């Protein structure tokens, strides 16, 4: 009995082994090539700088960026600027999520309200939101309020529309089920619409966190004395290109981190359900 099982196992594992081997090999090659591109890019950049093929005053170089980054770490400016940008982004993101959830719920609840507001939402959503930033400065002054509002303005309208569309797509028969069991429209919302919209809400959050960062950087360009957006604009004005490029790289890492954070939430949710 045991022997028979073993032979069966062995015949399966032979092709399975090959499959796993190929799979890992493919995976390694992809990772290797990814790293190679990065190393080549940094190498050519550094080499071109040292050989004076490019002017490091304008283009900086990996070693100069590393040195500048170390300087930022030592004098603590990394923490203040990154911290403030992160803080503003997270506050914007939370407010976007909160406001758009409330608005989408109201629109779902009242068909008339959604009909009334639809053209306004469409217009506001298609407007380039960066055009609003100067207005916010006049209204709210320079500082953190303006930047958070700028962050909110970029994502809020699209977020309301996509959540509302998601809510509307819930199976009508499931709503009927709640009504046949004696439930109201509010019951239908929290027993059916909300739980079945969680995937939509999570993917909406992924879009929002990226857009909030975009809005915050626009705000910092125009109305800040601190933050990565401020460093980028200030650095470009005084020709400290090390400062600009280092800030951009930090921004890249933040954007990726924030996205991964929501991805992780999504993963947790999927694992639970």
């Amino acid at each position, binding site marked *: 009995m045991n022997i028979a099982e073993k032979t069966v196992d062995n015949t399966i594992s032979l092709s399975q082994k090959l499959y796993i081997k190929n799979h890992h090999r493919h995976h390694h090659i992809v990772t290797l090539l990814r790293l190679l591109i990065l190393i080549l890019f940094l190498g050519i950049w550094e080499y071109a700088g040292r050989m004076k093929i490019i002017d490091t005053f304008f283009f900086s170089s990996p070693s100069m960026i590393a040195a500048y980054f170390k300087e930022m770490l030592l004098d603590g400016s990394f923490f203040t600027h990154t911290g403030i940008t992160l803080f503003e982004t997270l506050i914007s993101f939370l407010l976007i999520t909160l406001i758009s959830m409330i608005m989408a719920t109201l629109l779902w609840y009242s068909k008339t309200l959604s009909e009334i507001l639809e053209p306004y939402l469409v217009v506001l959503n298609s407007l380039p939101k960066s055009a609003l930033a100067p207005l916010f400065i006049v209204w709210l002054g320079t500082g953190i309020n303006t930047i958070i509002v700028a962050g909110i303005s970029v994502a809020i309208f699209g977020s309301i529309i996509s959540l509302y569309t998601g809510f509307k797509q819930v*199976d009508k*028969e*499931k709503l*009927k*089920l*709640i*009504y*046949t*069991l*004696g*439930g109201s429209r509010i*019951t239908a919302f929290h*027993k*059916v619409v909300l*739980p*079945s919209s969680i995937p939509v809400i999570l993917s909406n959050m992924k879009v929002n966190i990226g857009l909030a960062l975009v809005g915050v950087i626009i705000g910092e360009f125009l109305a800040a004395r601190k933050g990565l957006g401020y460093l980028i604009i200030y650095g470009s004005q005084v020709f400290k290109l090390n400062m600009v490029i280092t800030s951009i790289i930090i921004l890249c890492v933040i954007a990726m981190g924030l996205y991964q954070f929501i991805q992780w939430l999504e993963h947790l949710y999927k694992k639970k*359900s």
Partner: protein
Amino acid sequence: MNQTILECKNICFSYHNLNGETKALTNISFQVNKGEFLAIVGPSGCGKSTLLSIIARLLEPESGEIIFHEQENLKIGYMLQQDHLLEWRTIWKNVLLGPEITKTLTKQKEDLALKLLSDYGLIKFKDKKPSELSGGMKQRAALIRTMVMEPGLLLLDEPFSALDYQTRLMVSADIGNIIRASGITAILITHDLSEAISLSDRILVLTKRPATIKNNIPVHLSLSDNSPLAARNAPEFNDLFTLLWKEISDEYCGENC
């Protein structure tokens, strides 16, 4: 003994849009007796589901009235075409959805739910998610969800139509037996004539839209075993089927012949 539980009097209903009015039901009148199993058949799109929604008080009739003779607020159970179990809830949480919504979840309700789950062979699947159950089991869970509300009248809106043929035969027999055993009054809407004959005591035939009642056919099958599957072998089955088929196909022919 033949106590009337529900009476529909001259029910009319139309759907409206800007292009005009679509009459769905005209002058529908019938009665249902306590403990009776009534089937309603008719051409597709004739307004059968609309009628059921009106009885369930989900829609207001345009004219006419629905009278519940026994008690004004008769509890009505409704089974939809699909099970619509909520996939993020366990079977246990799904069958208790009704009491949870109406805030009537008591120990006694939980005991009833447990009893129904074990009676219908689902007790082992109590803590499973709906996706782990077969189509027939899901439909049974949906029936338990309805029965936990202890309805005085059960409305079945083509509850087997989403199942494949074999499962459908099994589940309709299964659910038919459960309903018979509980003695509950039921109205079944179906387009499957043999299902109507094998399950019901009486069949109402509706015309095509705007629907009126075309015929009212009592079903008396001479059988010792009253199960829906055995009913298909009753000597009267074929005659009834032919009669029903003629009634329905006349409706289709009205347009095409």
